[in-house]
C-alpha cells in the first residue's frame, strides 16, 4: 500500500513538474502575475510529493519489504539499520530518486528563500528547474522505476554490496548528488538570465551562493569517496583517475572556476557571458557524470547499473539540455555587455587566468576520460588511459595554479602594480623555498615531488596568511581588526590554505610512502620506517552479517608501545564477497596502515603494511576547503541580501 502511494506520488510529482515547466514561463513572457506565481506552490508541492515517494521507498527498505524488487536485490534482514537506510541510494533506481529529490529541494529553496528575486526571473528559474525535473522523473518512471513488485516475493534479500556497507561510502553519494544537482540550480539561473536577456551584479550575487553550496557539497563528497578508497580498498590508494571519479572531479573543477568568475560578475560586472557558459557547462559535466556512471560505456571500478537503454536515455537528456542551452547562449550572449574596465594587470585578469587553468585542467581530464572511446570509434585502437597519463598531463595545471594563486589573490581590482604585492609576499616565498630545500636535503636521491609539495603548502598557506594580515590596515589594533574581517575574506584564506595542505599531502604520500610485504608468524616483529610492528594473534570473529578474521598488532617506536591495531578480513556470505578492513594508526605527520592477508601454506600470515607520510593532510585540506566555502557562504552580504525584503520599506538595510 505504502509502496503504491509512493509510486503514485512520484507520478503526480512528474505532472506537477510538467505544469511548473510551462505555465510560469508563459506567464513571465506575457507578464501575467497569476501564471508566474504558480511556480512557487508548484515547486513546494513537487518537493513534498517527491519526498513522499522517497519516504515510501525508505520505508520499504527499513521494514525489509521483499515484495519490492529493489529491496530484494539490495537488502537483507541481517543488515544493520544504518545500511538498510543507506541502501536506499546504494543502487541505481534509488539513487536516481535521491537525485530528483534534490532537484526539487533546490527548486523549493528558490521558491522559499528567493523572495527578493525579480518575479519574472524567479518564475523562469523555477520553470527551467522543473524542466530538469521533468526529464529525470520521466527517466525514472520509464527506465528505472524503483517501485516494481516481485510476482513471488522471496524470504530474504541478496544483500547490499559489502564494499558499500561502510560509513564513509554511506554518505558519499548524497553529498555528491547535492553537489551535482546544486549545479542544476546555477544552470537554471543561467538559462533564465539568457531568456531574460539580463545579467548584472545582482544576478551574480544570487547565483554565487548556489554555486558555492554545490562546490562545498562536491568537495565533501569527493573527499569522503577518496577517504573511503584509502582505508577500504586495502592498499591505501586515494585517487585512481577512474572514469567515475573523473566524472565527479570535472564538475568540481568547473564549479571552482564558476565561483571565481561569479565574483567578477558580482563585483565588476564583467566576464558575464563566460560565467553563463561555465554555469551551463558545469551542469553539463554533472550529467556527463551521470551518463558515465550509469551507461557502462566506460569500464570503471564503481560503475553500477550499467544498461545501454538507460545510457541512451541519459545521453538524450544531456543532448537536449546542452543543445538547448548552448543555442540560447549563442543567440543571446551578445546582449551581455561587460561594464567594468580593468587593465591587464589586475585582480580581474588573475581571475581570468584562474578560470583558464581550471577549465583547461577539466578539459584534459575530460579528453583523457573519453579518449579510449574516441580511439576505438575513430582510430580502431583499443587502449587505456590511466593514472600515469593524468599525473603527467593534469598536474602541471595545478602547479601553475598554485604558483600564481597567492599573487592573484592579493592584487587589487581594476589596476594593479606587481611590485607592492611581490614585496609583501617575498618573505613567504623565501620561507617556502627554504622548506622545500630542507626537505630536499633530508631525502636522498628521490624525486623532487615531495619538496615541491611542501613548497606549495608553505607558499599557499603563508600567502593566505599575508593576504589576511594585509587587510587589517596599519597601526594599532590589527589583531582586533583581523577577527572582524568579513567572513568572505576568512573563507577565501581558509580555502586557499586548504588547497596547499591537500597538495602537500598528495605530494608527500606519492613521494615518500614506504611499503612492506612479508609473511609473519604470530609473535614475530618487524620494522617499518622506524616503527616496530608485532603480530600478537589472529582469531575468527562473527559480525552481524559477516564473518571476519581479526588480527592484533602492536605498534611501537623505540621499544615504546604506541597502539594496538586490528586489521580484519571479512567475508559476507550472502553477497559471497570478501573485503579487507585495514587498520590505521593516524598521526599528524604519518599514518601506519596494516592489512592482514591470507594464511600461508608454510605457516604464518601474509601481511602488508605502509608508512604513509602526511596522509591526513589530503583530507584535512579538503575539510579546510569545504570550511572556507561555508565561511564565504555565511558572509554578511548574502545574509543581508536574503533578509532585505523582510525589513520595512524606507529603513536602510544597514
Amino acid at each position: 500500500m505504502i509502496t503504491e502511494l509512493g509510486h503514485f506520488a512520484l507520478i503526480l510529482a512528474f505532472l506537477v513538474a510538467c505544469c511548473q515547466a510551462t505555465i510560469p514561463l508563459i506567464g513571465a513572457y506575457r507578464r501575467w502575475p497569476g501564471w508566474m506565481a504558480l511556480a512557487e506552490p508548484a515547486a513546494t508541492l513537487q518537493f513534498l510529493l517527491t519526498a513522499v515517494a522517497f519516504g515510501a521507498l525508505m520505508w520499504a527498505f527499513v521494514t525489509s519489504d521483499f515484495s519490492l524488487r529493489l529491496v530484494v536485490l539490495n537488502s537483507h534482514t541481517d543488515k544493520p539499520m544504518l545500511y538498510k537506510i543507506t541502501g536506499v541510494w546504494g543502487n541505481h533506481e534509488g539513487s536516481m530518486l535521491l537525485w530528483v529529490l534534490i532537484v526539487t529541494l533546490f527548486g523549493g529553496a528558490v521558491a522559499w528563500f528567493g523572495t527578493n528575486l525579480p518575479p519574472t526571473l524567479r518564475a523562469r528559474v523555477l520553470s527551467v528547474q522543473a524542466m530538469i525535473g521533468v526529464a529525470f522523473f520521466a527517466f525514472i518512471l520509464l527506465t528505472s522505476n524503483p517501485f516494481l513488485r516481485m510476482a513471488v516475493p522471496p524470504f530474504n534479500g541478496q544483500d547490499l554490496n559489502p564494499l558499500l556497507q561502510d560509513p564513509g561510502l554511506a554518505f558519499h553519494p548524497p553529498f555528491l548528488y547535492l553537489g551535482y544537482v546544486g549545479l542544476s540550480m546555477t544552470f537554471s539561473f543561467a538559462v533564465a538570465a539568457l531568456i531574460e536577456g539580463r545579467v548584472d551584479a545582482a544576478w551574480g550575487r544570487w547565483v554565487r551562493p548556489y554555486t558555492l553550496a554545490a562546490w562545498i557539497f562536491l568537495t565533501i563528497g569527493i573527499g569522503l569517496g577518496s577517504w573511503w578508497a584509502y582505508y577500504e580498498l586495502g592498499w591505501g590508494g586515494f585517487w585512481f583517475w577512474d572514469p567515475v571519479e573523473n566524472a565527479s572531479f570535472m564538475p568540481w573543477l568547473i564549479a571552482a572556476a564558476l565561483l571565481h568568475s561569479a565574483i567578477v560578475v558580482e563585483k565588476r560586472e564583467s566576464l558575464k557571458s563566460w560565467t553563463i557558459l561555465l554555469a551551463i557547462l558545469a551542469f553539463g559535466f554533472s550529467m556527463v557524470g551521470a551518463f558515465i556512471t550509469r551507461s557502462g560505456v566506460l569500464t570503471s571500478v564503481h560503475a553500477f547499473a550499467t544498461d545501454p537503454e538507460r545510457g541512451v536515455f541519459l545521453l538524450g537528456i544531456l543532448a537536449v539540455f546542452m543543445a538547448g542551452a548552448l543555442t540560447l547562449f549563442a543567440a543571446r550572449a551578445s546582449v551581455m555587455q561587460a561594464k567594468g574596465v580593468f587593465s591587464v594587470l589586475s585582480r580581474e585578469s588573475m581571475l581570468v587566468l584562474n578560470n583558464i587553468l581550471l577549465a583547461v585542467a577539466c578539459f584534459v581530464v575530460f579528453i583523457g576520460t573519453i579518449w579510449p572511446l574516441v580511439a576505438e570509434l575513430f582510430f580502431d585502437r583499443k587502449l587505456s588511459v590511466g593514472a600515469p597519463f593524468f599525473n603527467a598531463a593534469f598536474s602541471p595545471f595545478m602547479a601553475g595554479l598554485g604558483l600564481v594563486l597567492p599573487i592573484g589573490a592579493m592584487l587589487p581590482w581594476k589596476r594593479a602594480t606587481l611590485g607592492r604585492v611581490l614585496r609583501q609576499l617575498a618573505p613567504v616565498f623565501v620561507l617556502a623555498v627554504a622548506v622545500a630545500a630542507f626537505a630536499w636535503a633530508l631525502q636522498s636521491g628521490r624525486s623532487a615531488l615531495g619538496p615541491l609539495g611542501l613548497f606549495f603548502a608553505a607558499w599557499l598557506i603563508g600567502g593566505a596568511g599575508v593576504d589576511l594580515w594585509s587587510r587589517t590596515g596599519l597601526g594599532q589594533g590589527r589583531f582586533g581588526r583581523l577577527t572582524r574581517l568579513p567572513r568572505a575574506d576568512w573563507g577565501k584564506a581558509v580555502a586557499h590554505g586548504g588547497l596547499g595542505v591537500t597538495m602537500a599531502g598528495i605530494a608527500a604520500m606519492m613521494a615518500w610512502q614506504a611499503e612492506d610485504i612479508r609473511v609473519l608468524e604470530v609473535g614475530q616483529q618487524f620494522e617499518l620506517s622506524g616503527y616496530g610492528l608485532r603480530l600478537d594473534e589472529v582469531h575468527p570473529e562473527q559480525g552481524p552479517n559477516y564473518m571476519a578474521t581479526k588480527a592484533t598488532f602492536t605498534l611501537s617506536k623505540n621499544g615504546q608501545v604506541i597502539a594496538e591495531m586490528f586489521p580484519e578480513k571479512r567475508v559476507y556470505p550472502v553477497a559471497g564477497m570478501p573485503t579487507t578492513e585495514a587498520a590505521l594508526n593516524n598521526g599528524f605527520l604519518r599514518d601506519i596502515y596494516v592489512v592482514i592477508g591470507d594464511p600461508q601454506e608454510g605457516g604464518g600470515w601474509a601481511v602488508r603494511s605502509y608508512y604513509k607520510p602526511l596522509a591526513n593532510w589530503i583530507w584535512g585540506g579538503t575539510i579546510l576547503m569545504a570550511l572556507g566555502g561555508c565561511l564565504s557562504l555565511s558572509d554578511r552580504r548574502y545574509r543581508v541580501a536574503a533578509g532585505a525584503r523582510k525589513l520595512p520599506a524606507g529603513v536602510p538595510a544597514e
Partner: protein
Amino acid sequence: MKRLILALCLIAAPVMAVQPDEVLDDPALETRARAISAGLRCLVCRNESIDDSNAELARDLRLLVRERLVAGDSDADAVAFIVDRYGEYVLLKPQSGGANVLLWLAGPIMLGVGVLMAALYLRGRAGAIEPEVARLSQAEEDRLREILKD
C-alpha cells in the same frame, strides 16, 4: 568455526595484490618490477593496474614481468614483451604515437587557445571606456542636495 573461516578464505580467495612469495630477492629488480607493473593494466579488472589488482591474471602478469627482468630484459623490453602479447590496451600510460598525439597535445593546445582569447579580451577591456552612467535629472539633483544638507 575457525576451519569454516579458513575454508571460506580459500574459496573466496581474496588474493592480495602483491604476495610475499612474488617479491624478488634483489631489491633493485623488485623496485623496477613494481614501477613497471604500476603502469600495466589488469585485463580482467576495471581500470586497475596489475600492481593493485587482486585478480589471478594480474598475479600471472606480475610474475611474468619479474621473470623477464630476472632474465635480463631492460624495462622497455619487458613492457614490449607484454604489449606484444596483450596489445596496447595493457598500457595505462598511452603511447604518444599516431592519433594519440591529439590526446597528449590537447591540454597544451587548449591552454594556448585560452590564453590567446583571454589576451584579446583583456586588451579589449583595458582599452574600453567606462560606460556613461545615466545622469541624474534636475529634480533628483535637487533632492540629493536636500538630503546632503542635513
